[in-house]
């Protein structure tokens, strides 16, 4: 194969090292001039996905907004959803009311928006009025007279019967006496009870008369006592009828009056009728009673004691669990449908809960203690949840799916869900659900759920994929400025002047590591803006300017770069050996990037290579000691392929090379050092020294083309800082893949040094370009036979490899000659 060796690349001009923001694209003095609001930019896909999800009414069209944390998913989604929800119809209010037939199954009552609270208030008023009207009715003379008449009738009946017995006894000298054991009959004389002795002194006839009378009275007394319960029952029934009539009279007009306000709602009318029937049936609850004996009797009978729950009037109250007119907990504005964000999505916070009150050591509950969950509040609108928090809360995810599947909210505790609860509790009537659920989370969770939960994809059919960057064209720049203005206004920060905005845009490009893109990580931008605002305040400036933004960037870097400073310090002190002048065979400065949270910096690393006769292996020492990651190993293996294809396509590759990152004590990953490793290998084979004033980054393919890598800015700056510390010589620089030039957003001091010719950045397309630059010797172009000209790097490499081959062949022949020790030696040499 004939290759053309390109000339060594020239240095990049300073303009290519940093894409300054074109301030003519920012037609304002400060962001205060920009209009309020404005959509979040750079999220076209997410916008479309959201529009589809919000527009689709079919089941399962819930949304998963995926993107890294801080990209502004929540703000974007909430803003967009609230905007849409304002146009949706306001959903109904929901109440729980007592189920008089089955009190443990409270009824759900749906009311038009805004009518829940009035119903509750009217119910309260009704109770108050009943508490006054009913006792008043029972205090009337008419009621008392009628009641008294019934009681009198009963008493008179009893007394008459008893008196008749007494009179009959008296006629026969027998007294009816009350004793602790009941009623007893005793013989008398002249009204006094006779003692046994006096009785014995009576004549036989007198005794017999009294005994006969006693026997008759016994029978009559038994008959009388048997009648008494029936009379009592009759009396109770008469009193009950009287009470019902009285209550009906007192209650009727109050409930009829209330019903007039709710004629359009049959469910409410039914409830009021149930209230009427229950009040009539339990009218004694409204009548004054003595508290202490009641409690004692209730406790003795094992019934519920007195207390808030035992308040008999609670059952007529209305528990408004969703009031669209008074949305709370940070829920959306009251017009349109609700948008609810639940930041603590526990099971009970999602589907509601049934609270209990401790009374006399017993946990009591009723329908008034049913509390709404986020799903109730969001019903008819949208519910936004953080998927990580949902997954972190036991049963929340499963319950959310169950609710979405069933289309109704059933309040259940954990114990009930697991079937552990054996005590009687409430079973509130489920409430129909129509809600759009939006989950926010990072992509990993989305793809894991998609892969491992079959139901997930059915319930969350729409994914809004949030991009972390956007185009930095004219439109993008202006939209970005608008976004910065919105962030500042929302966060109540000082206005930002044009220069400040421009610097923020430049930094936005630097954050994403691309001169042609901008980060959409709104959280980072906002925190930077807040810090710039602080510095502007410190300087008593009315606006945030370029200098304040730069100060914030510098301060942030300073706060984060302790490790970088330590490494730089150790390099400066010679503890970590990085040479920045002279030339060495088989040694080159590679560049790595260390990422600490949100701060990344470049760290130069010395890569060395040694070669000897062998069986065509390039040994990656990092891999051998398990410090090299798979991508790094892949890069090293490519080197073997490159050597074979270029220099040994018709002969064996008889070398053994070892590559190592010197003074590296942690893992190495990525293939961005593969070009540097190849340069070191070529240098070692050709025995031509490499300039140590240069550092190299870039991956390489099997054809020797240099490919783009990440973190190019940090890598250049990392080497630059070492050189600055030692003094810029004008010889120093960094070789980067030409494909990375568009990513350059270097620090101002680096750009200035390059502009002044004290530092250089070289865009490299091929290994031949790079090796020429690094050695100062042409790489050499292969002729038609594949040979390289004398005085080139490639010729030297090819010659060295050919020598290895010849040596290997000779040794192999000697080994095949079968001469004892010499053979053994030869075989050993070949290993």
């Amino acid at each position, binding site marked *: 194969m004939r290759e053309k060796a390109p000339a060594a690349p020239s240095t990049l001009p300073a303009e290519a090292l940093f894409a300054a923001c074109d301030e003519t694209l920012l037609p304002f003095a400060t962001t205060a001039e920009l209009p309020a609001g404005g959509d979040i930019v750079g999220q076209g896909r997410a916008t479309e996905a959201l529009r589809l999800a919000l527009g689709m009414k079919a089941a399962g069209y819930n949304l998963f907004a995926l993107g890294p944390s801080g990209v502004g998913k929540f703000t974007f989604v909430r803003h967009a959803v609230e905007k849409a929800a304002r146009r949706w119809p306001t959903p109904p209010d929901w109440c729980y009311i007592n189920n008089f037939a089955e009190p443990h199954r409270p009824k759900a009552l749906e009311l038009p928006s805004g009518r829940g609270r009035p119903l509750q208030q009217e119910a309260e008023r009704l109770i108050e009025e009943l508490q006054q009207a009913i006792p008043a009715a029972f205090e009337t003379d008419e009621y008392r007279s009628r009641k008294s008449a019934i009681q009198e009738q009963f008493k008179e009946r009893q007394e008459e019967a008893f008196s008749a017995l007494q009179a009959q006894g008296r006629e026969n000298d027998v007294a009816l*006496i009350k004793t602790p*054991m009941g009623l007893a009959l005793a013989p008398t004389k002249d009204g*006094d009870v006779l003692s046994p002795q006096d009785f014995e002194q009576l004549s036989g006839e007198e005794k017999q008369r009294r005994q006969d009378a006693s026997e008759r009275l016994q029978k009559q007394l038994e008959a009388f006592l048997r009648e008494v319960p029936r009379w009592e029952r009759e009396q109770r029934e008469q009193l009950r009828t009287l009470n019902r009539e009285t209550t009906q009279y007192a209650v009727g007009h109050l409930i009829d009056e209330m019903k007039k306000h709710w004629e359009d709602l049959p469910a409410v009318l039914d409830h009021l009728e149930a209230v009427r029937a229950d009040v009539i049936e339990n009218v004694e609850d409204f009548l004054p009673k003595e508290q202490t004996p009641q409690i004692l009797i209730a406790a003795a009978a094992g019934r519920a004691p007195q207390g808030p729950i035992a308040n008999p009037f609670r059952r007529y109250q209305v528990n408004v669990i969703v009031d669209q007119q008074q949305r709370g907990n940070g829920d959306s504005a009251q017009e349109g449908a609700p948008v609810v964000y639940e930041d603590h999505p526990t099971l009970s916070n999602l589907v509601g809960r049934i609270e209990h009150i401790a009374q006399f050591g017993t946990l009591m509950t009723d329908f008034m203690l049913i509390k709404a969950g986020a799903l109730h509040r969001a019903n008819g609108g949208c519910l936004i949840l953080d998927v990580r928090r949902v997954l972190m809360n036991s049963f929340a995810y499963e319950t959310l799916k169950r609710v979405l599947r069933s289309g109704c909210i059933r309040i259940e505790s954990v114990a009930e869900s697991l079937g552990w609860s054996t005590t009687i509790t409430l079973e509130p009537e489920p409430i129909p659900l129509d809600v759009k659920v939006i989950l926010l989370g990072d992509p990993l969770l989305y793809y894991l759920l998609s892969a491992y939960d079959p139901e997930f994809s059915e319930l969350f059919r729409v994914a809004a994929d949030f991009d972390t960057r956007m185009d930095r064209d004219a439109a993008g720049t202006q939209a970005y400025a608008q976004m910065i203005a919105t962030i500042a206004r929302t966060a109540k920060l000082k206005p930002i002047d044009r220069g400040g905005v421009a610097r923020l845009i430049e930094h936005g490009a630097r954050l994403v590591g691309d001169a042609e893109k901008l980060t959409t990580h709104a959280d980072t931008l906002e925190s930077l803006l807040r810090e710039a605002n602080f510095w502007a305040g410190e300087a008593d400036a009315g606006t945030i300017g370029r200098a304040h933004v730069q100060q914030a960037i510098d301060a942030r870097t300073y706060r984060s770069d302790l490790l970088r400073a330590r490494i730089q310090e150790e390099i400066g002190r010679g503890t970590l050996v990085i040479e920045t002048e002279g030339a060495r065979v088989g040694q080159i400065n590679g560049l790595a990037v260390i990422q600490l949270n949100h701060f990344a910096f470049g760290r130069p690393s010395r890569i060395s290579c040694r070669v000897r006769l062998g069986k065509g292996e390039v040994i990656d020492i990092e891999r051998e000691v398990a410090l090299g990651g798979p991508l790094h190993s892949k890069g090293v293996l490519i080197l073997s392929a490159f050597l074979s294809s270029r220099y040994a396509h018709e002969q064996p590759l008889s070398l053994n090379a070892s590559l190592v990152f010197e003074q590296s004590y942690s893992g190495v990953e990525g293939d961005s050092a593969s070009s540097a490793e190849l340069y070191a290998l070529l240098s070692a084979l050709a025995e031509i020294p490499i300039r140590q004033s240069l550092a190299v980054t870039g991956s390489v393919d099997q054809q020797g083309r240099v490919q783009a890598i990440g973190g190019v800015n940090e890598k250049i700056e990392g080497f630059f800082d070492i050189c600055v510390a030692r003094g810029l010589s004008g010889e120093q620089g960094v070789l980067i893949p030409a494909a990375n030039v568009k990513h350059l957003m270097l620090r101002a001091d680096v750009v200035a040094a390059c502009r002044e010719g004290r530092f250089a950045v070289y865009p490299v397309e091929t290994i031949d370009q790079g090796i020429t630059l690094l050695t100062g010797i042409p790489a050499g172009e292969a002729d038609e036979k594949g040979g390289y000209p004398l005085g080139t790097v490639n010729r030297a490499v090819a010659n060295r490899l050919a020598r290895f081959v010849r040596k290997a062949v000779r040794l192999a022949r000697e080994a095949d000659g079968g001469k004892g020790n010499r053979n053994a030696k030869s075989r050993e040499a070949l290993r």
Partner: protein
Amino acid sequence: MSAPPAGGDPEVRRRFRRVVVAFDWGSENAGAVELVAALAERLRAELKAMFVEDIDLMRLAEHPHVFAFSALSATGQQLAADHLRRVLRSRLARSREAIEAAAERRQLKYAFEVRQGRLLAEALKAAESEDLVILSWTAGGGTTSFGPGQAPPVVIAQALAEAHARSVLLLHPEAPAGGSLVLAYDGSAGADAALLAALEVADEDGGAIEVALLSGRTAEVERWAETIRQTLADYPARGGRFRARLIAFPGDGLEGVCRTAARLGASLIVLGADLALAQHDTGRRALERVGCSVLLVR
């Protein structure tokens, strides 16, 4: 009207020096004991408790076999010999213990006595003019049966007329606790005595008295009202602390007073014994059916 007790030494002003409470087996209960002890403490009076063994019951208990009818099962049964006597003895012991415990708890000066006879007669016989005699509404569970037309207050009022005692408090078992006090006032000397007795037993802290003026004549009502206000103002040590509300009952009599007491949830009606005796059937029946305690004053 009788003049209020002379001022000066509070001991001299006390109307009730001794509280005499009489029980029999049917009227003893812990609630009544506590109430009586509390009243004696408030009145700073000596407590004399008397358990009256009903003579008829005692004679009945001597019979070898007593046939008793249970109201619960409506059947009769032959009681074993001596069974009734043992039950009566245990009731006596229980009464004694309850009285002693209540008196000692309140550090009252007290005495306990057992008598045989009939409850009302024995209680009045043991009482002096400055004693407050207390009986339970259900007193006389033995042969003392109050038939129709014989309301206990009226029976007691009759007995009072012939006794040394001047005041009998009849405790109603269903009287509401802490209710107000209603005084039936007809301008008589008995009514004035009832007014003073009412002031004496009224709760110092509660201090609410409803005075029912039983007259239809405006001038008479106004005159009585002035008398009552003056008595309240002059009442030593407690002057002005009572809240008295005067209510006119033109032509409605004691029946209306009883109705009002029920409506107010009153715990006590105070009236002169003569007023009780003067009632015809309707008034007597109202007194018989009233749901609170009654203090009769002579």
